[in-house]
């Protein structure tokens, strides 16, 4: 008997729904095997990884803090991928947004006014959007593959940030640490309540709602879906593929930039060599796990945020390297893509030799 993939006559709606759940289940199973191989009790490790982060108020807050940027970036990427536009460089757009937005408090450290925060947010959005426009332009103008260009620009942004905070933007009173001055007053985003959760979380929810509305109800969203499934029919409908490429890149860049400036003006309160622990890449998983659907992205963002927390927890409590976080995230993406095959195909046992 051999296994064979067989095309279904129609897409299976049931599988479209089950596939992410199946992927999560398989990830947990493989994770358990990994923990056993490392010599740990898998039940305990998985508990610390996925359940414990939800057992204390502090860690729940922390999940929200981490989920917010993942969701912000994830909804933008979901729009891109729906249009068949492969923005892999959200991490760079996030860095650029953070950097451009942070230029205000760095150059005008004494300026205190609500305008400062507003300007920082606007510049963060603009920085991300314009940086994302580069791969869009290269694709539209020279047919350059956007996967490569957007990914390479991540390193450009990160090295630029590194150069600035080791040079011109370094805090003069910072004992030579590569970091900027600490922001304060109107230079930071006000927290919600007295924890670490700040307004960025609201931005994420608002972005989900707006994007869900755009994709479901507006002509623009329809245009994006059509160009993504059939460029030829899209051009017959009068939709312009290049315009969609630019729009999707700039939208997701803007959201990544917003996430970036919210990071530095929120939890960190200053520019450091690493603006995020790879939110821009993890958001790719978020977008796929959420079925490229904004509401789905919301839940996927929360789940991936928990995995970050879990990674830290197993490191602290069991002394397992926090690289397990990346292993989990990688397995999850791999398994989602694999399980997605089941939407259009079914697995059959066939006897060979027929």
């Amino acid at each position, binding site marked *: 008997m051999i296994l*064979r993939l*067989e*095309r279904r*006559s*129609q*897409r299976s709606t049931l599988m479209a729904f089950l596939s992410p759940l199946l992927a999560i289940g398989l990830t947990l199973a493989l994770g358990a095997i990994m923990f056993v191989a490392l010599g740990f009790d898998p039940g305990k490790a998985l508990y610390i990884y996925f359940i414990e982060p939800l057992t204390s108020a502090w860690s729940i807050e922390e999940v929200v803090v981490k989920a917010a940027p993942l969701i912000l970036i994830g909804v933008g990427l979901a729009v891109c991928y729906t249009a068949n536009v492969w923005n892999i460089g959200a991490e760079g757009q996030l860095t650029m947004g953070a950097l451009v937005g942070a230029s205000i408090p760095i150059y005008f450290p004494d300026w205190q006014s609500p305008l400062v925060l507003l300007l920082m947010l606007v510049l963060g959005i603009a920085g991300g959007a314009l940086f994302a426009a580069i791969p869009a332009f290269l694709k539209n103008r020279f047919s350059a593959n956007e996967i490569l260009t957007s990914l390479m620009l991540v390193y450009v942004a990160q090295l630029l940030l590194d150069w600035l905070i080791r040079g011109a933007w370094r805090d003069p009173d910072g004992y030579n640490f590569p970091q900027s001055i600490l922001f304060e007053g109107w230079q930071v985003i006000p927290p919600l309540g007295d924890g670490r959760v700040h307004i960025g979380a609201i931005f994420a929810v608002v972005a989900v709602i707006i994007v869900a509305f755009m994709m479901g*109800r*507006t*002509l*623009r969203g*329809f245009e994006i*879906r*059509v160009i993504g*499934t*059939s460029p*030829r*029919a899209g*051009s*017959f*409908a*009068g939709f312009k593929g290049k315009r969609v490429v630019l729009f999707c890149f700039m939208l997701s860049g803007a959201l990544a930039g917003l996430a970036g400036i919210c990071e530095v003006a929120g939890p960190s309160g200053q520019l450091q060599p690493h603006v995020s622990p790879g939110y821009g890449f993890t958001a790719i998983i978020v977008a796929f796990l959420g079925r490229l659907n904004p509401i789905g992205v919301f839940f996927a963002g929360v789940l991936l945020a928990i995995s970050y927390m879990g990674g830290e927890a197993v490191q602290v409590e069991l002394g397992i390297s926090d690289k397990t976080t990346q292993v989990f995230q990688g397995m999850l993406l791999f398994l989602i893509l694999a399980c997605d095959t089941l939407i259009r195909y079914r697995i*059959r046992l*066939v006897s060979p030799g*027929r």
Partner: protein
Amino acid sequence: MSTSDMRPDDGSEAASGAYILEARNIVKLFGDLRANDDIDLSLKPGEIHALLGENGAGKSTLVKIIYGALQPTSGQVFWQGAPVTISNPAAARDLGIGMVFQHFSLFDALTVTQNIALALKGERDLKALAGRIETVSADYGLPLRPGALVADLSVGERQRIEVVRCLLQEPRLLILDEPTAVLTPQEADQLFVTLERLAGEGCAVLYISHRLEEVKRLCHDATILRLGRLVARVDPQQESAASLAKHMIGTDVAALRSGSGAATGAPLLELAGLSMPTDDPFGVALKSIDLVVRSGEVVAVAGVAGNGQSELFDAISGERTSKSADAVKLAGAPCGRESITQRRRRDAAFVPEERLGHAAIADLPLSENLVLTHHAVGNDVVRNGLINRGAARDVMARVAEHYDVRKNLTDPEASALSGGNLQKFVVGRELDRKPGILVVHQPTWGVDAGAAAFIRQSLVDMARSGSAVLMISQDLDEIFEIADRIAVISRGELSEAYPAAELSPERIGLLMAGTHEKAGRDAERGAEA
């Protein structure tokens, strides 16, 4: 291939011994819909067997079951007398069944050779394969360039790939789902020669077509379906086209009423010196095309596929814009540089040749497919950038009702419609707007006799009510049936449009053959003046 190895492996099945393929009591349900309801079909080696029926009768469904692309809900298929389960197309190909689908299954970005290699198991040596493609295709009179990109090929050429792909596997049963719908008469004739030769070699052919004349000419036996049920098994040679149509539809096909001759008015569509280079090596450049279509008339563009028809369509629709604004005028307004959306706003409507992938998207429901061409034309479907789904569904329902689009859900995905029903939808979608200018390319591709008559009637009525209708078609019968004037396209050049009454099919054939004719006539004119 000799008939001796066609014998069943199992002696007890002697009754069906002569059949290479037999399908018994096939039932296929899609939800509540009985697409196939207890159908029997049998074919002998060397037989060309027609499968007939109106749009949505269940023909494609039945052959997909035989080819393993669909599983029957119940029923049994026998191959050379032995019961078989054909679980997928690869299994069918292993048995020796080849199929040419109604909607092609080719990858646009790959070459002819690569596409064929994908379907052949264990074909590694692409160079050798390219050689075989060239010999087999030349041998059967279906010339193909192995290195050409599929995206650059005309529909007729694409179909040749599918046929050649089957031939390379030396099939014992070849299924063709409406192969001639997209072919020129010459290409179709060539295909018939190929099929007859295959039949002579012992291969059975199952042939689906809406063109009854060719069925009469080619087929030895016919199975007729209606609404998923088997209604008759007849000898097409003993029937007239009209009696076959009657079996299929249950009533007689209405004759076309063309009304009074064309009372033409103002020119609504004008092409003047329309030239367009082509950026792809196998495309056809348009060379200084002149044409006027007036209110009240139907003008047809005849020609062999691949002579610039698609390019002409794209240039008029605005999918490709020209350098000069004056090259295309709609209702007197120069709009050569305008986009397709702007041209739609000038009360023009367009129906392209390919219904899936160009006119409609397989995975979208019909109501969203309606939005594709209705979003910018000032009806309620889109307001202030918002899609009004209710309005889209209403218009879709109106189109489906008026043009008899048969569907088993209120708003199915385009891929769940039978080919002819989808064609009725994409034509009806534009006619519903009552456009002042209508440009259609192959409007009755794959539509059954009754529905084709209805679509042609609608085109004529549209013209008689004051619209200008331009029809690009390869079907001469269709052209003579409804066109007031006829122009012929050949290698990107368009002849003058002659009144239909002045042209005979032979003369059109001459015009198709080349450009000398036009030049000759122009010279004559010059001399007369």
